[in-house]
């Protein structure tokens, strides 16, 4: 389409930043929300080092194979100097080797799986990690809900879900000191719509809580079916639930569903957060919630701008080095310091509950490791 005037981003008057998101396919909702955050940030801060920042958006179609091509395209054809994204850890991981071998820095926005940044000096992230998230939810289940027996339902074909379920299991068995605290584990595949079989089994084990991390669509259907089967215990999950579709599909049945997430718009932790919320509301006056992943999209872009400024150039290697040394950067979702792994050091997560069809703040859980 509208490619820039020259092929090298260094000596032209635009700086190209790739946004690598699922805009079609199963994860499109999440991808769109992140993209909105990045675009909002770009509107507010369209320039750095006196040059215009141009976003190049690539759709990875929620598909790993497409993801590699899309990432390669951003780097090799569009010559971006950095990449933001992608929603969905597996999609980010698919791009991992490509950014690494091309030495282009990338920032994962809401991808929580540890593998995204592990052993990859070019991938950074602005959100917390699954081991942390798993611990948060295990704490919530054990301490707040007082659960002794937990059932787990995981989406086996989704590494995010499997990973989170595992970290939760580890944390919960440790907390409760009961090796058999997980009374049943059910598996399903992405795209499944019928969970009655698994849920009937779970019902028979009569758990106190069900932990069911996974895609929002499947999870909403799962909760509906659980309620229809007469399962009344709390059902909790992870950050991926926080999308509008979770509520529209789940309807009355997802009332009371609890999940961990990154950001609470009613109570932004920083000044930057307040600005972000205000700008968001200005742009989308009729939206009720500010989605957490949108805030992360905003943070990713802003952190990148900060790094470019500090690097004083749009050279990918310089940007990477600047990113790696980010300390106490004030983002919308909190103060970010990048650690040796490339991850944002975060020690608190927000817990939200669905109440009256809205994601409502419940608690902030801080865990010191």
């Amino acid at each position: 389409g509208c490619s820039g005037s020259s092929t090298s981003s260094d000596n032209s008057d635009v700086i190209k930043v790739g946004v690598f998101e699922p805009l079609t396919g199963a994860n499109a909702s999440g991808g769109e929300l992140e993209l909105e955050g990045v675009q909002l940030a770009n509107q507010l801060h369209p320039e750095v080092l006196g040059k215009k920042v141009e976003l190049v958006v690539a759709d990875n179609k929620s598909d790993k194979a497409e993801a590699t091509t899309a990432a390669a395209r951003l780097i090799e054809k569009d010559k971006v100097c950095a990449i933001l994204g992608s929603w969905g850890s597996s999609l980010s991981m698919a791009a991992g080797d490509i950014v690494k071998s091309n030495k282009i820095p990338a920032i994962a926005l809401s991808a929580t799986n540890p593998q995204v940044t592990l052993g990859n000096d070019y991938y950074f992230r602005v959100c917390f990690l699954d081991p942390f998230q798993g611990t948060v939810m295990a704490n919530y289940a054990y301490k707040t809900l007082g659960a002794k027996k937990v059932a787990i339902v995981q989406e086996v074909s989704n590494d995010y879900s499997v990973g989170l379920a595992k970290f939760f299991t580890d944390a919960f068995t440790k907390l409760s000191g009961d090796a058999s605290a997980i009374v049943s584990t059910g598996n399903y595949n992405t795209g499944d719509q019928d969970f009655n079989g698994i849920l009937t089994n779970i019902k028979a084990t009569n758990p106190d809580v069900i932990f069911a991390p996974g895609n929002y669509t499947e999870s909403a259907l799962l909760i509906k079916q659980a309620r229809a089967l007469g399962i009344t215990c709390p059902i909790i999950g992870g950050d991926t639930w926080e999308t509008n579709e979770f509520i529209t599909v789940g309807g009355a049945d997802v009332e009371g569903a609890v999940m961990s997430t990154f950001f609470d718009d009613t109570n932004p932790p920083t000044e930057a957060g307040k600005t972000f919320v205000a700008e968001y509301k200005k742009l989308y006056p009729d939206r009720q919630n500010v989605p957490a992943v949108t805030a992360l999209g905003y943070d990713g872009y802003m952190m990148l701008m900060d790094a470019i400024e500090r690097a004083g150039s749009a050279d990918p290697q310089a940007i990477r080095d600047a990113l790696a040394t980010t300390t106490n950067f004030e983002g919308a979702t909190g103060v970010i310091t990048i650690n040796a792994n490339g991850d944002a050091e975060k020690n608190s997560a927000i817990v939200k509950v669905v109440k009256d069809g809205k994601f409502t703040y419940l608690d902030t859980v801080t865990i010191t490791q």
Partner: protein
Amino acid sequence: MKNTQNSLGAYLKKHWKTVVFLVLVLIGIGIADQFVNSFMRRLLNLSAIYTIVALSMNLVNGFTGQFSLGQAGFMAIGAYTVAIFTVPVGLRSTIFYLAPMAPLLANIQLPFVVALILGGFLSAGVAFLIGSPCLRLRGDYLAIATLGFSEIIRIIFTNTQTITNGALGIKSIPTISSLWWTFGIALIVIIACFLLINSSYGRAFKSVREDEIAAEAMGVSLFKTKMTSFLISAFFTGIGGGLYAALLGTVDPKQFYFTLTYNFLLIIVLGGMGSISGTIIASFVVTLGQEALRFLDEPMAFGLDLPIFRPGLRMVVFSFLLMVVVLFYRKGLMGTNELTWNFIANKYRSIKSRFTKKAASAQGGDSK
């Protein structure tokens, strides 16, 4: 010895055009390998891999007439073999972080070529197991059974955590980027297919496609013939899968969903069932075409603020074009023809005569 040399000389003399063409192709690849940018290189590599897999599929579906839809599964076997055996041992514990790799495999690392060929053989081995019961089935039944097996393979890979790392997939596979691997192997596969098709074995394939009962009555063993074609196809597909893994650097079960097979089916139909050259052309057209249409996904300022160009449009246009080809070029680009020198010469002649006729009629029109 002398005899052989003579006939080799005669062979060269007879096929000098082909030989020259092959040499040119090799030179072309060499030049491309030096100068093409890395994005284009990736696309070319992908096209070559698609050629390999589509050609193997055409062997069974186009030439032997057995409607088999197991390609994705065989690719998965090849891809995972390469992934499992070439991932650096040191990285394995971080990749298999949920459940450690089975100790039996954890320390085996093979050179790429060995893993690639092993993948081919494993794939053929599985094809053998699948083929014995399945190849007795006919038409659509065979199709759904092979599709089923390919899905079963994928589901097994999703669930055998300690071998395949389950849904997490395997990343950090050492990648290839030179064009020689993919194009070299594609060339070998093309030539092997071509020679095979024009031998007695290839004719046996075709006879089974045309009429099983008559073929059997002519002494062609149905089972053996179908199996041979199925095994060769699976072997090459496995190799193609291995290259695919090495190109992407990451594998995961979802890549090998049964819809992947449809891509190859589209390619062979687009190129012409039972045409080797058609398959090759279509592989490149489809892979490069999908990329070429990508501008449709990007918002375009047309003055008006009509959001026609947005993600998804590319695939709509692509599938629409595909329908157009299916509906208007029923036999695909090449039908069952091959792009031989004669074919080109005939085409050239017919186009030329059409032009001269046109010119003649135009002149006629003038003189009136």
